[in-house]
């Protein structure tokens, strides 16, 4: 189920990134970030669900628990993606303001 969702997200973001409009590319970029984060999440084995907390009075956990590390990684990745997407939004907005162009092909002529 999760992997199908990751696949759909990747497909949608790549479709959007191949479009002409810079705004659609932007939406594609943010979807791509979500897709990658979910991918990392699913690659680390989400079937182990119990929280990784040692019960009181015991020395170690006795049953399989969720691995907290990928979630910490994803948390970092989300922050980074968020920052970069915000920068990209401002960049696209400024590009539109100064060049008046929203189309990638006519942007190529402005280099």
């Amino acid at each position, binding site marked *: 189920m999760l992997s199908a969702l990751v696949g759909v997200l990747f497909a949608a973001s790549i479709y959007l*990134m191949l479009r002409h409009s810079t705004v659609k590319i932007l939406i594609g970029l943010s979807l791509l970030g979500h897709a990658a984060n979910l*991918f990392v999440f699913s690659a680390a084995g989400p079937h182990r669900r119990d929280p990784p907390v040692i019960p009181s009075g015991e020395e170690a956990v006795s049953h399989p628990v969720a691995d907290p590390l990928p979630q910490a990684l994803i948390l970092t*990745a989300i922050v980074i993606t968020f920052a970069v997407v915000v*920068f990209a939004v401002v960049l696209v907005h*400024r590009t539109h303001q100064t*060049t008046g162009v929203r189309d990638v092909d006519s942007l190529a002529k*402005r280099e």
Partner: protein
Amino acid sequence: MNALVVIPVALPLVAAAAGFLFHRWPRIQERIALGASVALAGASCALLWVVRREGLLVTRLGAWPMPHGVVFVADLLSALLVCAVALLGLAVVIYASASVGKRRRAFGLHPLVQVLLAGACGVLLTADLFNLFVWFEVMLIASFVLLALGGTPSQLAGATKYVTLNLLASTFLLCGIGLVYGLTGTLSYADLARTLSSTRPDGPFSAAAFLLMAALAIKSAAFPFFFWLPASYHTPPPAMAALFAGLLTKVGVYAMIRCATMLFPEELQRASVLVAFVAGATMLTGVLGAAAQKDMRRILSFHIVSQIGYMLMGVAIWGVRGLGGAVFFLLHNMAAKPALFLSVGVVEHDRGSSALHTLGGLARQRPVASLLFLVPALSLAGLPPLSGFAGKLVLVRAGLDGGLWLVTSVALAVSLLTLYSMIKIWLKAFWSPDPRGDDAPPPRDTPRRMIAPLAAVAAATVALGVLAEPVAALCFDAAAQLLDREAYAQAVFAAGEGR
């Protein structure tokens, strides 16, 4: 805890924070950046010296037992490149303080350069995959802003492509790292090297390897992923273009070498034909793209791509000689390429343009600046006794010994075409008569703070060529250290158990 390993990352970050605090006083910002860059250069030379004498330096941040926790490791390769990054950073900071306009400096150019340096040093010194990703992002975000800073239409158009494609590469990198973690349960280089040398993980390990290599290939502008580079590198001020040319793609190549030697050396050797093909195609497309251009900056941007091909050729050859050659070529490029961009900056300062049809007569009017273009240009083309000659000699000999005839002959042919490009610039911009005729205004004085760093970087390419023997020996040592991943793992684990 060995502080020397952390200083090259911490120092520029502190300087950047301090710089942003003084954002109303560009003058103080500039002083902070200068001071920090001098200190960084000193610290990184000390790091290189210590690593050369004592071997690997390992620092654990926090008291986590190995293989958990964040570890910084400086081996010979990291130390060499950190040293090059720091020295180049110092030259660019001095150059930028004289050449970049007031408005851009007021928007925090100097602190951003420090963030970029911190990111690059972080990538070079970190010892686990996820931190590699994080430091790459730090470096990229700083470069995004530096590229767009100033907001001219061409800069914004270039930055849009640069940001989009680099974001895509970062996503691939993250996916590759996620897969590696899912398959092996660890991300530290040392632990990965140990695990992967004894067992082969089930599942799509080669997919993970391909994702990592593709992501790093985009970041280092290898064929067929290089299109973002010529579309954006000619737009920012020359000082920034020089910094990007010397740092960003080179750090990508470093990460590629590091991942290949630590994670999948056998797989990479099995795929050496593919790597050699990518290397040859990168050289050829880069140099042919440059031949079609008529602007100094654009020509040089395409040559960055073609030079990356030589480093990949070293990776394809593998072994101490191949990887050592790649490392030497990295160092050569971190001097020659920025020197070329800095000299274009001098030309632009004088004439206000770098389009070849507007230039001419520079050799007579600006003899010093012309010489400072000619030296790195000939070095790039590979003429003795400059660094490019030594780098190509090492690589070509290793390629012939390794039996990679095709890519070696491509490398030699591309060398000739590089010489053609450089001569094209030289003849048109420097030797032909001035197209403005006799009524041209007298040449503008170039500030000494622009000429001095340019001369220093150009002298570095001469020094690398003249001192090729000891430098190459150092590079071979670095490559031997890279190939012995068991010793690396042992050193890191031993440092973990030490306290």
